[in-house]
């Protein structure tokens, strides 16, 4: 972490109709950082994550990516900010077709040779699959890895994780998170993850933003938040989390 902000949120609020989803959020994300946004269900985590790659825009306030307002160049933001969703979308067809669908509007990607595609798959730990294998036959963890490979085709600077391991067992979840952390180091990625599982995230995230009812209630390292018993206050009871995992 070098203190160089890649994202800045300034007084960001999100309202849908009469409902306030997020309120007055101001924070920065530094380049190369692993930031985790934690909160209970309905805290507004996923709504917040959608704003990082402009899938939704704030009702008030501004979001800056590398110093520029996100809305000013959305195509560039989306190419530089990849997302790994909770339930990855796997298209019908082979693994190769999935990679091609993901990159069909990017000329560099469509010209990639099979061995180059295989090396991307290797990067995400899919070493035993074949390019012509049906993607929907892959297991949950493998589908998550394929989705990650599709995202990496764009060479993103930032990777957003939307509860990417919530449908996986703890061992698989850890394997995916180990992979993401390894990619962060090797590809110099910035990771922004939203999760309700602070037990899993504390191994990887360097900083935590604690969200409750759409507002930031605490921020800092896991150690500092533990001292302040912030997780209990935000309704992220450890026993509850252990039950879920």
């Amino acid at each position, binding site marked *: 972490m070098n203190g160089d902000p890649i994202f800045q949120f300034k007084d960001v609020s999100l309202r*849908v109709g009469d409902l306030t989803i997020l309120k007055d959020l101001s924070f920065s994300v530094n380049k190369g950082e692993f930031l985790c946004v934690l909160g209970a269900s309905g805290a507004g985590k996923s709504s917040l994550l959608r704003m990082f*790659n*402009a*899938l*939704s*825009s704030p009702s008030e306030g501004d979001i800056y990516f590398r110093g520029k307002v996100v*809305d000013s160049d*959305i*195509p560039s933001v*989306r*190419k530089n*900010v*990849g*997302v790994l*969703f909770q*339930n*990855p*979308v796997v*298209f019908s067809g082979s693994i190769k077709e999935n990679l091609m*669908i*993901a*990159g*069909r*509007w*990017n000329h560099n990607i469509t010209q990639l040779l099979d061995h180059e595609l295989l090396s991307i798959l290797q990067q995400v730990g899919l070493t035993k699959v074949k390019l012509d294998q049906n993607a929907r036959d892959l297991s949950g963890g493998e589908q998550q890895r394929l*989705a990650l490979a*599709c*995202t990496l*085709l*764009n060479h993103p600077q930032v990777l957003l994780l939307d509860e990417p391991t919530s449908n996986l067992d703890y061992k698989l979840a850890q394997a995916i998170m180990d992979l993401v952390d390894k990619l962060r180091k090797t590809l110099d990625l910035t990771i922004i993850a939203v999760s309700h599982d602070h037990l899993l995230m504390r191994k990887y995230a360097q900083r935590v933003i604690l969200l409750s009812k759409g507002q930031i209630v605490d921020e800092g390292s896991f150690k500092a938040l533990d001292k302040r018993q912030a997780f209990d206050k935000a309704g992220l009871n450890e026993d509850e989390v252990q039950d879920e995992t």
Partner: protein
Amino acid sequence: MKMRCKMRPDFYVLNWSDVLVSLVFIAFSIILIKKWKLGLEKTLLIGTFRTFIQLTAMGYVLTWFFDQQHWAFMLSLLMIMIMIASFEGTRRQKKDIPHFFPAMLVSLTGSAIFILGTIMLFILDVKPWYSPYAAIPIGGMIIGNGLNSTSLTANRFVAELKHREKEIETLLSLGASPKQAVYDAMKASMHASLIPNINGLMTVGLVQLPGVMTGQILAGIDPIIAVRYQIMIMYMWFTTAAMANMIMLAIVYRQFFTKKMQLRRELLREKA
């Protein structure tokens, strides 16, 4: 017209007394309905009466229309038909699509201008070019088929968007434009509405004789000439559906995205 149609000397002219005799079918149906105690007698009698009145009135109206030999009248009439079809198409939508009425208006007008224009000027070569004898029935077929096809496609398109919401947002996140992100949804909805038209091209004449051809043959036209008309109509039928759908979808898909290339998810939610 390039060619005068040959009429058979024994062609069947129905007079009003013949039409009255056809009421025997209704009488027979009423007997069946009573026997089965379906309780539909009153509705059938109203329907029978309305068919008689509506079609007789339409006959006189058409006779009057055919006497109006002016291009402005004909274009106005076609525009009114398109507006009624657009209104009906908008009413038929299961979900509200923003600006669907103008989308229908543009797609039906565009396909009508191209297809009706081609038929009137280059295929039938009618004189004058706005001849109501050709423009009204053919224009009606184009607009009617365009209406049915675009209504079906639009309904299917919205269902596809709803079904593919995550897929669309994944593609947007990977850098796709809104058009690229919904391309598969557009393709699936086009397929669903065009396949019946293609099946029609495959089976026409094998399973049943189409209405226009049957009507012409009954009216004493040489079957070979009736067939030529039907072939033209089948080709026109498909192109109308394809063209109207493409124009409509090109307008409609944009309504589901903001200017910031974000999917308007609220349009896909069920209303409380």
